[in-house]
């Protein structure tokens, strides 16, 4: 029992994921700054932001709306992200094997942060937050099917294995799934899905600083906003880790840990570059992008995978 608590809270759980996610968030901001020929923030900037929000700032509850749900939603977001991260990282680091069907559980837990942002922003009673929440809902409807199809295709490629450990083992016994044509197509679709899940440009319309003034996060201040930042840091770490586990061979023995870090950083770099070279889409464009084009791509990948390509 105590060892599971250690897994959840320390390694590879909450504290480790928060630290790794904070460093990746710094990497993201630094690359953004370098793309714009700026100098960028110092290394520990995400942690300064987090502790400032957590320790210094005051919490303001909205006058109209439900304060309890408003405060509970960020905790739910952190819980969902940490729990999903735990199920991803335990097999990835070869600590525990997980259980049968944990890919499905991970898939559901990964949607929990987005759902809790919706619940929290609707509980605040702010009209701009409501607009942001409705956009987030439409975005979820758009990308979840694609993400589910990506997971399904990976399950098919691994020979009907429903747990992450067997999927990684199947890749290490054969070749990484990204080495095939269908794997490349799945990787493209998967990267766009995590872009939308992270709420980064071009899919940041729920947040939309210019028009909605931070949209779904508009009413959050102080410690609850710190929790939202924490959930975002964790998601920035575990979603690339999930892609690495599904498509890119996981972690091999020996120097595998270095390769694992390199792969995760490479995916974050890709996401950051997409974010910096694209404008924000309209919600309708994002919907048709996922529902039509990305789904088409994944279906082609599934057909190719059925022929063993």
């Amino acid at each position: 029992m105590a060892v599971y608590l250690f897994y959840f809270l320390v390694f590879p759980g909450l504290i480790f994921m928060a630290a790794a996610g904070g460093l990746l968030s710094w990497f993201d901001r630094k690359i953004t700054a370098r793309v714009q020929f700026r100098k960028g923030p110092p290394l520990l900037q995400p942690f300064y932001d987090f502790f400032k929000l957590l320790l210094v700032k005051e919490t303001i509850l909205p006058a109209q709306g439900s304060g309890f749900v408003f405060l509970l939603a960020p905790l739910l977001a952190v819980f969902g992200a940490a729990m999903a991260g735990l199920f991803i990282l335990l097999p990835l680091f070869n600590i525990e094997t997980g259980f049968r069907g944990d890919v499905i559980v991970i898939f559901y837990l990964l949607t929990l942060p987005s759902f809790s942002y919706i619940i929290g922003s609707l509980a605040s009673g702010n009209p701009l937050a409501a607009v942001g929440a409705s956009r987030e809902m439409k975005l979820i409807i758009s990308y979840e099917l694609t993400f589910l199809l990506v997971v399904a295709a990976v399950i098919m490629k691994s020979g009907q294995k429903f747990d992450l450990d067997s999927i990684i083992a199947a890749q290490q016994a054969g070749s990484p799934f990204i080495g095939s044509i269908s794997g490349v197509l799945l990787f493209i679709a998967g990267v766009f899905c995590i872009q939308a899940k992270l709420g980064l440009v071009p899919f940041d319309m729920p947040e939309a600083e210019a028009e909605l003034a931070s949209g779904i996060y508009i009413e959050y201040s102080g410690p609850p906003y710190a929790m939202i930042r924490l959930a975002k840091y964790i998601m920035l770490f575990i979603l690339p880790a999930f892609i690495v586990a599904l498509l890119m061979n996981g972690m091999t023995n020996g120097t595998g840990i270095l390769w694992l870090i390199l792969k995760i950083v490479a995916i974050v770099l890709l996401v950051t570059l997409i974010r910096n070279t694209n404008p924000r889409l309209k919600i309708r464009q994002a919907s048709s992008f996922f529902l039509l084009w990305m789904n088409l791509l994944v279906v082609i990948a599934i057909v190719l995978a059925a022929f063993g390509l």
Partner: protein
Amino acid sequence: MGFKEFCFRKSLWVFHFGGASCNNCDIEIIDCLTPRHDLERFGILLVGSIRHADVLLVNGSINRRDKDRLLDLYNQAPKPLLVVAIGACGCTGGIFAEGNTFAGPVDKIIPVDAYIPGCPPKPEAIISGIVKLAGKKG
């Protein structure tokens, strides 16, 4: 300087309130965030919502309509909040000080922590003011 103060001064998020400005101060504030001056190296970000703000930048002459908005914003912001008055209009009223619609310089409406005079102040002056402000709280 404790840990809390250290984190606070390393991560000042800025909300920009432009009163009845002639727009020159606004442009100089935006200049601070451009590649040449890059305020993000001090951890300073421009945020969209007052609930996330640590610093309220006020520029332009505050007329009678702006006064209520400014008070609203100040009351909605989570404390601790630093207020910076930028430009001649924000600090004293400048050439509008005797105007009919003028509702007083910023410090008559809300408490101000730093004044950055100039018409408009250079980006270097704004950066210097904000860095000094971050040092003062420490």
